[in-house]
């Protein structure tokens, strides 16, 4: 218990309103200090909702949350007022897909970082500005002294994302939540930001929960991958295990859909249909209606969870052993 930085168990998130949406269903997740975990899933899988629940960012009126979430020994569900404010920023911080929306357009980058530092440490203005400058240098923003006085709109997309990372890390959080931070970036900029995050993670020894829909990005950034579908984690393991020995049919479908090693012009093994509407609590495997290997048992009860290795789990009746026609590990194509 003590070694885990993040401990989520039995988490349920339900949105009420015109329609009830069971966004997260009985989610179990743990993360050790210094680990990078990617939650991989498609739109509506509940991956972003999970992150926001961890930061208590969901609108309280329309959301009911049950289950327990602990980060660094703090019970997140019970936090209020000052303790919550301290938790956000000092213990946990978050970066978003659109830095243009997450940064305040009327303050300079330097002011925003300094404000965050003063808010959490009580440092003086000058000290806080020094920290801000140091942070901009750490996220490799060129000519950091001038950039300190820039407004967000004066920066390019990649620079803004770096500035947001600087802001998020200014108070040295133990856990960084990253919600698709590279999705809106160009390919050559995306890889720069991913490598930067990896370096900073080592430097600060922090943990990262990274949410993405892109398997390639997940492999580049993470030690561990949890695949999420319809509000539940269907498979979890180290990045190598997920890539080389995917056992859940959904994970295999996602890997095939990445087209990394698809033969040109061949017919793709597409997952048919679309994700379920989540209007009710699942009482059977949510993926069964789209699954090519569906069995009667899949439609009768929730799938069993197999644990074929330490910290590895597969929520599927077929999860006990490697998939029969498992493909060889994809080879890295040498750049000629």
């Amino acid at each position, binding site marked *: 218990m003590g070694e885990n930085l993040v401990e989520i168990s039995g988490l349920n998130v339900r949105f009420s309103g015109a329609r009830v949406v069971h966004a997260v269903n009985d989610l179990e997740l743990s993360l050790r200090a210094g680990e990078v975990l990617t939650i991989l899933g*498609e*739109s509506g899988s509940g991956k972003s909702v999970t992150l926001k629940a961890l930061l208590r960012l969901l609108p309280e009126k329309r959301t009911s949350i049950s289950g327990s979430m602990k980060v660094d020994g703090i019970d997140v569900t019970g936090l209020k007022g000052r303790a919550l404010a301290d938790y956000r920023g000092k213990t946990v911080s978050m970066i978003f897909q659109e830095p243009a929306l997450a940064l305040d357009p009327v303050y300079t980058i330097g002011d925003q970082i300094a404000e965050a530092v003063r808010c959490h440490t009580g440092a003086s203005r000058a000290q806080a500005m020094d920290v801000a400058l140091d942070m901009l240098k750490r996220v490799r923003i*060129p000519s950091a002294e001038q950039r300190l006085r820039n407004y967000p709109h004066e920066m*390019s*997309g*990649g*620079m803004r994302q770096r500035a947001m990372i600087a802001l998020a890390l200014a108070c040295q959080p133990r856990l960084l939540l990253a919600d698709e931070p590279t999705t809106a970036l*160009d*390919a*050559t*900029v*995306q*890889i*720069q930001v*991913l*490598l930067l995050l990896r370096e900073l993670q080592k430097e600060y020894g922090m943990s990262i929960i990274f949410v993405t*829909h*892109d*398997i*390639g*990005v997940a*492999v*580049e950034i993470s030690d561990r991958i949890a695949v999420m579908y319809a509000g539940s984690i269907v498979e979890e393991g*180290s*990045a*190598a295990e997920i*890539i080389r020995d995917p056992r859940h049919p959904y994970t295999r*479908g*996602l890997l*095939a*859909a*990445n*087209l*990394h*090693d*698809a033969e*040109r*012009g061949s*017919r*793709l*093994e*597409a*997952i*048919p249909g*679309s*994700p379920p509407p989540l209007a009710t609590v699942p009482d059977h495997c949510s993926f069964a209606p789209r699954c090519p290997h569906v069995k009667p048992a899949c439609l009768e009860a929730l799938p069993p969870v197999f644990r074929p290795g330490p910290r590895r789990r597969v929520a599927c009746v077929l999860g006990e052993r490697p998939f029969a026609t498992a493909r060889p*590990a*994809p*080879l*890295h194509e040498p*750049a*000629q």
Partner: protein
Amino acid sequence: MTDQQGTDLNASPDRGGPAQPLVIARSLKRYFPIRKGLIGRRKGAVQAVDDVSFTVRKGETLGIVGESGCGKSTTARLLVGLTDIDSGDLIFDGDKLGATLTHKELWAGVQMVFQDSYASLNPRMTIEDTIAFGPKMRGVAPQQAHAAARDLLARVGLAPERFAARYPHELSGGQRQRVNIARALAMRPRLIILDEAVSALDKSVEAQVLNLLADLKAEFGLTYVFISHDLNVVRFISDRIMVMYLGEVVEIGPVESLWKKRAHPYTAALFAAMPSMDPDNRTEVPPLTGDPPNPINPPTGCRFHTRCRFAEEVCATMKPAARPVGGEAAHMAACHMLDPQSGHTMAGARGQEMADG
């Protein structure tokens, strides 16, 4: 199949034969003026597409890749006549747009599927009305146009009895993109421009749509221009790939050849920026630093020289011409290192390397 039922438009006939390219784009140029002040005085221009030439062969899929600001979407809009060409020629099956070809005639042969599946459907129209709208504009009787629309809905995998009367907000993203494809098909085009048409879809849905596109291409004898930022998808679907950077073509060639020999340093960097998909062999060094420059004031000479690690003096002063890579005329790249006479110190070595493969 729809021809036999006599319910639809006929595709415009193939005039020049299979050897004549379907599209020849010659020195296309499009600058977007930036206007400021009360009466809109011109204050510079976004050089969206600058001197771009290429051909699209009949029956092929040409993939266009590049980063934001590279001009790939503007190129798409130029090809389909939605944006006016500043200078240069667009020749569709032997007829030059503006000379022997009107916009209306061009639209009989070219259609487009856009990235945003929601914004490309009129929210106040049922999807059947949306699909039938174009043929009705071309003079097809309403009854026939609607019958054809329902056939096409079935063809793209949406049961007409369940979907025909729905509004766009009642569909998922993948379903909407199928409607957009059906809408383009209803015009019986010979060329469909797919501008990031699958980029906004979930991966599992994207695969379904890619399969559908392949089927439709075979069934209707279509030609595609497929624009995407996702190299994996472009490699999968394309016969040839064109790489653009800041409004210019830097490299174009058959997929296999381009995948093996990435002659232009930008192409090489773009490919190297793809996630490795191998947990034990992750990317360690970013292939490029910084963001793509602003296309308002693009760098002189070779536009890539500001980010290129091989850049030398000649790159900043002289614009490189497109040259065949490794003696293969189908594979061209615009880099001084391929030209032994350019004065670039690596010209001979790099050119030889590319020739040897």
